[in-house]
């Protein structure tokens, strides 16, 4: 009998794989300190965190979807839809914030649920299904707003976006971290989480172990829709105004946050913990690029290259 020779990954690559994201974050922080020393202080960094909160929450949903080998390209449109819909329905009335917010969460959940149904029951590939959903939802918000969104954001909704506890810690960041830790807990400590990782790692073996894969996938897409809606409310509160351009970048940004955070498209590798840093990095990058005035161009290119590099490096390692 042959003893299985286990090739241990060398120390450096092990370190890179597990802590690379933090190295990247540290490097980027250093660069930002050099480029704009005036905002390189706790307040400045917390501001970036506040800007990252919305993206961070969307990216948590995206992470679950990508873990299972899918992708959700509809999050951007859902964010915009919920944004214009909530503002347009609340119309500045504080008493409407709570019911409308709940309704919005339900709508987001429903969009995600439809994605999940399309992917599982209709067996449409995730990117086609969510891309179509992206278009459909985009059409819906154009029809809803007739191209001109209107409405006013009342103060209590602004609070969840801009408010600060003890005038220091942004409420949005607390919500973000709360959601993140809740999902980390669900992923690592519950049967649902175990099953999700089983489906992610190998759907065929999961099914043959009695897991109802379709149910898991539907839940995952529904959560992604729900979290997009939640993020939209926070973003709305932060902006305090209404615009049709708000969600455009969220699909790519959330995929980028997830991939940069170490979640892979295959094999059930990664998780929400990396995505927190991923979202922060993306927003830090955005603010840096704004400072050197190449935001639109630079961000798209850098993100595209980053995702390709990370996914490419990963697939090379797997095959080689």
């Amino acid at each position: 009998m042959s003893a299985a020779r286990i090739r241990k990954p060398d120390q450096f690559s092990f370190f890179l794989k597990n802590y690379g994201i933090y190295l990247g974050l540290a490097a980027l922080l250093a660069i930002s300190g050099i480029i704009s020393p005036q905002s390189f202080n706790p307040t400045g960094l917390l501001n970036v965190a506040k800007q990252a909160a919305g993206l961070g929450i969307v990216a948590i949903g995206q992470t679950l979807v990508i873990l299972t080998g899918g992708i959700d390209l509809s999050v951007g449109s859902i964010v915009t839809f919920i944004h214009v819909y909530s503002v347009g329905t609340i119309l500045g009335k504080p008493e409407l914030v709570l019911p409308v917010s709940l309704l919005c969460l339900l709508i987001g959940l429903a969009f995600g649920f439809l994605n999940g149904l399309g992917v599982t029951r209709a067996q449409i590939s995730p990117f086609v299904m969510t891309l179509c959903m992206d278009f459909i939802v985009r059409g819906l918000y154009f029809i809803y707003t007739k191209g001109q969104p209107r409405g006013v954001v009342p103060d209590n909704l602004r609070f969840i976006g801009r408010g600060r506890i003890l005038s220091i810690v942004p409420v949005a960041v607390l919500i973000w971290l709360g959601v993140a830790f809740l999902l980390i807990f669900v992923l690592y400590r519950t049967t649902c989480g175990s099953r999700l990782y089983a489906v992610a790692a190998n759907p065929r073996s999961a099914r043959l172990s009695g897991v109802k894969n379709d149910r898991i996938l539907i839940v995952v897409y529904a959560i992604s829709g729900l979290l997009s809606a939640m993020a939209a409310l926070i973003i709305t509160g932060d902006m305090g105004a209404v615009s049709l351009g708000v969600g455009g970048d969220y699909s790519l940004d959330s995929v980028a946050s997830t991939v940069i955070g170490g979640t892979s498209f295959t094999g059930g590798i990664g998780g929400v913990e990396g995505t927190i840093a991923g979202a922060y990095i993306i927003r830090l990058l955005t603010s840096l690029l704004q400072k050197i005035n190449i935001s639109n161009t630079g961000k798209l290119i850098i993100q595209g290259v980053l995702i390709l590099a990370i996914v490419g490096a990963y697939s090379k390692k797997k095959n080689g």
Partner: protein
Amino acid sequence: MITNHSSFLSRLFHPERHSSSLIWLVLAALVIIVVTIVPEFVTPSNLSNVFVQMVPLGLVSVGQTFVILAGGIDLSVGSQISLVTLIAANIMGDSVLSILFSIFLCLLAGLAFGFLNGVLVHKVQIPPLIVTLCTGFIFQGIAYALHKTTGGYISANFQKVITASWGVLSMPFFLFIFFLLIGFYLLNRTRFGRYIYALGGNEEVLANTGVNTGRIKVASYVIAGVMAAITGLYLAARVKSGGALYGVPFTLNSVTAVVVGGSPLSGGEGGLAGTTAGVVIVSMLNNVLNLISFRFNLQSTFYKEILTGVILVIAMLFYRKRS
């Protein structure tokens, strides 16, 4: 299998490949419905309008067909088109030499974009969806950088040549037919075409016969890139400017046209005849939506997005059931 149901019609339209014959029936039924409900569709001016809209979608879909038949997908064609319109608008002058040089450079750019996609898919082994999504964003980023408020300059001579028309016939018509025929020839008459179908059917089997599958795969993306460049040139000429968002609708529309035309995303089945029908359907429905919106005083662009998404989902459902 679809072949078992192949009818007279399918033989008529697909002498060799077995894409769905049903698409032509669907098209015929749609035309009848449309003519009944929206009679203004068949006015000569509107029909020529439909045709003008159809040409760029047709051109880019020819390239998309190659990629999808080979089992891939190219989500970057839209950004490639935008970028090419801007390249053309930035370098073109009025002299014949300058125009020819610009055309050459744009085609070269399309080739390079496609080559980049192909190499990333083949060598680095990243799934096509992610590669082309990311390169699409990269091209889009570059397009933003090149975008000037004025939209650049496109020579009037170039526009004249590209959009020339002689009664019913027009230059765009010839362009589309020309590239369609070339594509048809490549796919149905040559080794390369055979390998495209084989690659989409089962890459390993093709590799076992000693064919370099990587080259075929890269070539499919290069064709998509060159066709996107041609589309970009045509659009730039028609609109007489370059724009960072000109190509945006073409990504999903080209995928929709190909899938509706009976080439499933799994690859290896379908063909350009089906794609042609798909292009006609997508363009026709968009136009009809415009007409209806005009009638009811609605903004058609809002509904177009929904329509595209819904058509694509229905097509996927439809072909899933059949196979």
